[in-house]
């Protein structure tokens, strides 16, 4: 320790040189992006579900468009409270290519209740039904609602647990994704 104190300048140069060497000679590893996982920076796990009209909707078919994936239930008050804001932003940003997939966790909910709620509120974005809970398992949902902002490359940019989400949060995250898309 005594030597270090007396030769502080030399010690500092040595530490900075070793650190610079470590930075230069350890190549960057990026674990996100390529792998598929329900976390920020990862590729969104793909799935296909039926919508209200019985048509199959596949997430990977929406590649090239920013997607808001919202997992919800009709018995969950915060889920219902954030739906009007979601409808509002859907109307604003749908012409720019943005879309919403509202996945009802039907395995723990009632399909008729979910449909009635959507009709009452006049929701126009796609409503999907996760009857066997596969999507909820894939996305490790353990709080209602859970929302994933997925960019046009299929990468999860933001995960929001719980609700209701403020309209500004929805707008800010959607605008960020749309901006990144613009060359």
């Amino acid at each position, binding site marked *: 320790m005594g030597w270090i104190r007396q030769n502080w*300048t030399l010690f500092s140069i040595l530490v900075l040189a070793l650190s610079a060497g470590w930075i230069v000679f350890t190549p960057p590893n*990026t674990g996100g992006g390529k792998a598929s996982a329900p976390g920020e920076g990862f590729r969104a796990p793909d799935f296909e579900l039926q919508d209200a009209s019985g048509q199959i909707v596949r997430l990977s078919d929406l590649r090239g468009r920013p997607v808001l994936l919202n997992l919800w239930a009709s018995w969950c008050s915060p889920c219902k409270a954030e739906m009007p804001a979601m409808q509002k932003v859907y109307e604003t940003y749908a012409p720019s290519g943005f879309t919403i997939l509202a996945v009802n966790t039907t395995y723990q909910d009632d399909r008729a209740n979910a449909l009635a709620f959507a009709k009452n509120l006049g929701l126009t974005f796609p409503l999907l039904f996760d009857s066997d809970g596969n999507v909820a398992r894939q996305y490790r949902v353990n709080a209602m609602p859970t929302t994933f902002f997925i960019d046009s490359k299929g990468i999860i940019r933001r995960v929001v647990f719980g609700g209701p989400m403020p309209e500004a*949060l929805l707008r800010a995250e959607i605008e960020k994704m749309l901006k990144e898309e613009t060359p």
Partner: protein
Amino acid sequence: MLPILHIGPLALPTAQLIMLLGFWLGLELAEKQAHHFRTSPAQIYHLTLIGLAAGLAGARLTYATRTPSAFLASPLNLLAPRPEMLDPAGGWAAAALAILVTMRIRRLPLWPSLDALTTLLAVLAVTLGLAHFASGEAFGAPTQALWGIELWGERRHPTQIYETLAALLAAAAVWPGRRAAVLSAQAGRAGLRFWVFMGLGAAARIFIESFRGDSIILLGSFRQAQVIAWFVLAICLWQIGQRLGQQHQAVPEEKPPHEPISSI
């Protein structure tokens, strides 16, 4: 990984809860240890609260300025209690600025105050590692190492554990009673504890970042966090050197002139 903690009907975000507990514990300890650095607990308490309030406001405003149109449509959402709408970099910058301005206005001594606040920073650094472990953020690169953990569908470096251990070591190095803390309390060396802690943190970041799987890459081959940490480390080494140098200059002045006994 435990992102959500279920307590009865409540679903609480674990990472935020850990950070809140860390803040409370850090503030308690910083107040208790304030006297080691010739500051008062009340002074530390007020500085921390001002820093917290400014940090939260700064984090929210920075987030809002990135997409102002989103908030123009619903300005009241600026007050929404959502942690997702906070920008950490803007928050830290605002907190630091508010603390420095408060010190200047109240004429508080800068370095002893920062030495005392280092306790809070040390506890927050440890809890940040634990919060990352709970949320799965700041994850590691894929590895075949025996100590790797299963996270996000792959075996990965447990970088959150590395981060926590490094923070614990840095905290232990500057804890009251240790050399850096004792020296910091001496005349001419105030601030040593703060800079030693910051330097150890920067060195740890440079080392651990190489095992991260979520680094932001600069110029195709450099990790942004490492480059920033390298500059921080350089500043810390310089500042530590200044304080150690002051000791050598101070020693002859502090000692009485050596007179031969025969002259008395």
